[in-house]
């Protein structure tokens, strides 16, 4: 095992309590969070979960009520104001509403973070132009933010956040105000920056799709606490918390499909040798030809009613709703075979009673 390096972001026991009308509100509740260099770390939760407050402690825009914030091996709360400002320059931040300076041109916006540096004007402009080129907005340098679309504004904001060559980029719902296609483009850009600049990205969102498309790790937040965390594939393919399950389900359209199938009259009276099954499989299982094995080795027929494969990071999660038909002994064996290969099998109850005991026993 390689020697573990210190995480670039290390939040220890961080709590943030707001004093509102004499009853305190705990927005972040004793959170421990370690993020490694080069990671794209997603924090997902519904609004009010405290994720925005949590990420604001990373650059001390929000001072924690208790706990320590360590970024790049420096404990931020121990820094002087001037040192903290220097530290903040290495933590870029982008926002849902872009927060550009409307009185300045696109180029001047990107130059802004460099104004306080000892850098000549030509050098500053050269750098700003290079960053605009990186985000694909070279031709807009003389425009004003109000003349740009949402996606373009976010690109300017990204270029601006990179002006001080940060190690970390914090994205606070940066795609939430954008349409799906633009969201995708922005996420691709973030991924590109992660790959090419080694930028560590902390991304908060309420959209599962965002986490799935770029994040390596994810933390699920609810009521100020991280309730579940790990690699994106682990967390979402095997959710332990109902809230996490909630995010996955709605993302994979599974609940809709199940509801439709259950409502389908023609499926209510299956023959004695037919079973309506919901299969869920992940990782390696998606690469095996399980269905054709079922057919070939167990002489079962599988009629696929619904299928969906979700790619989460480098892992795939497959969902199938099938009618499996065959001899009852073979049905039981087939289901055991599926279980053994890491497929979760759920029997969907149909109208007909008296299902085979063997089959009932094998499915969980």
């Amino acid at each position, binding site marked *: 095992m390689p020697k573990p390096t210190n995480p670039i972001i290390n939040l220890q026991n961080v709590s943030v309590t707001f004093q509102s009308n004499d009853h305190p509100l705990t927005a972040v509740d004793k959170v421990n969070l370690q993020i490694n260099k080069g990671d794209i770390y997603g924090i997902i939760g519904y609004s009010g979960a405290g994720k925005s407050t949590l990420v604001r402690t990373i*650059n001390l*825009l929000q001072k924690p009520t208790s706990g320590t914030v360590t970024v790049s091996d420096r404990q931020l709360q121990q820094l002087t*104001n*001037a040192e903290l*400002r*220097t*530290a*903040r*320059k290495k*933590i*870029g*931040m982008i*926002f849902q*509403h872009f*927060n*550009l*300076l*409307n*009185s*300045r041109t696109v180029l001047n916006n990107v130059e*802004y*973070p460099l*104004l*306080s540096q000892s850098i000549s004007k030509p050098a500053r402009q050269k750098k700003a132009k290079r960053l605009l080129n990186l985000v694909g907005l070279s031709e807009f340098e003389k425009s*004003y933010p*109000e*003349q740009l679309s949402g996606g373009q504004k976010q690109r300017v904001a990204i270029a*601006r*956040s990179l*002006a*001080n060559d940060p190690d970390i980029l*914090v994205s606070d719902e940066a795609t939430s105000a954008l349409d799906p296609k633009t969201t995708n483009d922005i996420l691709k850009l973030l991924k590109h920056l992660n790959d090419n600049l080694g930028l560590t990205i902390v991304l908060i969102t309420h959209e599962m799709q965002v986490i799935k498309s770029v994040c390596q790790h994810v933390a699920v937040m609810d009521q100020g606490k991280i309730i579940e965390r790990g690699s994106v594939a682990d967390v979402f393919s095997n959710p332990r918390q109902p809230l996490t399950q909630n995010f996955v389900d709605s993302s994979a359209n599974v609940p809709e499909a199940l509801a439709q199938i259950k409502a389908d009259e023609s499926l209510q009276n299956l023959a004695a040798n037919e079973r309506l099954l919901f299969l869920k499989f992940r990782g390696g299982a998606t690469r095996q030809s399980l269905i054709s094995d079922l057919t070939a080795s167990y002489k079962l027929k599988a009629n696929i009613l619904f299928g969906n494969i979700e790619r989460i990071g480098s892992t795939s999660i497959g969902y199938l709703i099938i009618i499996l038909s065959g001899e009852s002994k073979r049905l039981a064996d087939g289901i055991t075979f599926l279980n053994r290969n890491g497929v979760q099998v759920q029997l969907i109850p149909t109208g007909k009673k008296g299902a085979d005991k063997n089959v009932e026993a094998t499915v969980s």
Partner: protein
Amino acid sequence: MLKQLFPNVVHIWPQFIQSIWETLYMTFWSSIVAGILGLAVGIILVITQSGGIAEDQYVYSLTDKIVNLLRSIPFIILLAVMFPITNFIVHTTVGTTAALVPLVVGIFPFYARQVQNALLEIDPQVIEAARSMGSSIPEIIFRIYLREGLPDLIRASIVTVISLIGLTTMAGAIGSGGLGDIAISIGYARFENDVTIAAMLVILIMVFLVQIVGDWLARKTVHL
């Protein structure tokens, strides 16, 4: 023509021209001084208020109370009350220069409030973005507040200068000179209505000019 419409104005022509200059003098200098003072106080109010970039409830509430107090004093009374202080600052209590002190004291709290309101229009998230980029308090004041708020600050300044022109005429009551002074001491006292009307017309022209120039400047600073 001018002689028929404004016989008495023509009669006191050099004095009338002199009054215009006095009004401009008072307006200009009190705008400059009250402008700087009001801007500073307005900025203090914005940055020290709760949630501001240099939050300080004591400084805020003290400044806020002083501004409210000064704004509550009717200007005509302020003119009289300010006598000793004026004497101390400019060593005279009569004339145009003496009027500058009460004019500044009378107008700067008004301007401070206008500045405060203008700066509060700036999206707090933009300020937060600047903080996230490591901007210091002076950088945020000069590069964000004063720059992003410029169109609103210009509009606030127009309103203030126009009010100030009004106040300079009131300062005529303590012998400050200017158009207000001759409108009262000559036009009103001697029943020479044409002098009063001429003074009013010149004041109106000044107000329109300030409004036109100000609107043009404000439009130039908005980038849509």
